């Protein structure tokens, strides 16, 4: 299982703040594609991905048990 956290607009579009994916290893790039295909989230393209609270690169591999967060463009301050 890989836990995917959603925030802001993505959370509203999906209608939930968390998605559980029953997959083994997957790259950051692949998980973005999977979410895009399954949930049609508008901002996936421009979002960053964090794995276990650190920004990850497209080629990084996500393991079962990792906590993934999709980070749309931020607007704090």
């Amino acid at each position: 299982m890989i836990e995917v956290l959603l925030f802001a607009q993505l959370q509203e579009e999906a209608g939930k703040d968390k998605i559980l994916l029953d997959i083994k290893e997957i790259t950051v790039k692949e998980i973005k594609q999977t979410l895009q295909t399954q949930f049609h989230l508008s901002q996936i393209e421009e979002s960053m991905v964090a794995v276990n609270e650190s920004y990850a690169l497209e080629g990084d591999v996500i393991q079962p048990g990792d906590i993934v967060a999709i980070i749309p463009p931020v607007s704090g301050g």
Partner: protein
Amino acid sequence: MRDNLFEIVEDPISVESLIEKVEDRNAGAITTFIGTVREITGEKKTVYLEYQAYKPMAEKMLAQIGGEINQKWPDTKVAITHRIGSLDISEIAVVIAVSSPHRKPAYQANEYAIERIKQIVPIWKKEQWEDGEGWIGDQQENVPYPTGKPDIKDEDND
């Protein structure tokens, strides 16, 4: 984390408490930045704002910004608190305090901190206007995640 220098909170922020966190006998300057909720942006009138954060990561990223500042401007002390939840017009959303032996680094580091917050800290703002609502993306009309940014793989508390 010592003294909670980098916090995401849900209650009103006390500017005084941030000043206390960075006070130092060797400081000759303390700068504070207070970010507040603005009513009019362009032609839109904000009724209130809602901030959301990925709290554990947001606090980590604030700490990372503090680390970057300490490297760029040695002898500075930094404290940052960002509030989340619903905020009314004029309420304080973020406070940044920086102390330094001399004034220039305190000013420069403080400005650097707010710019970095707007780049890398997972906090989102939702505007409630008179006629609708919307999550605000990148406010600065620049690329929110410039490539080659130094924070992709954090070097935890070096």
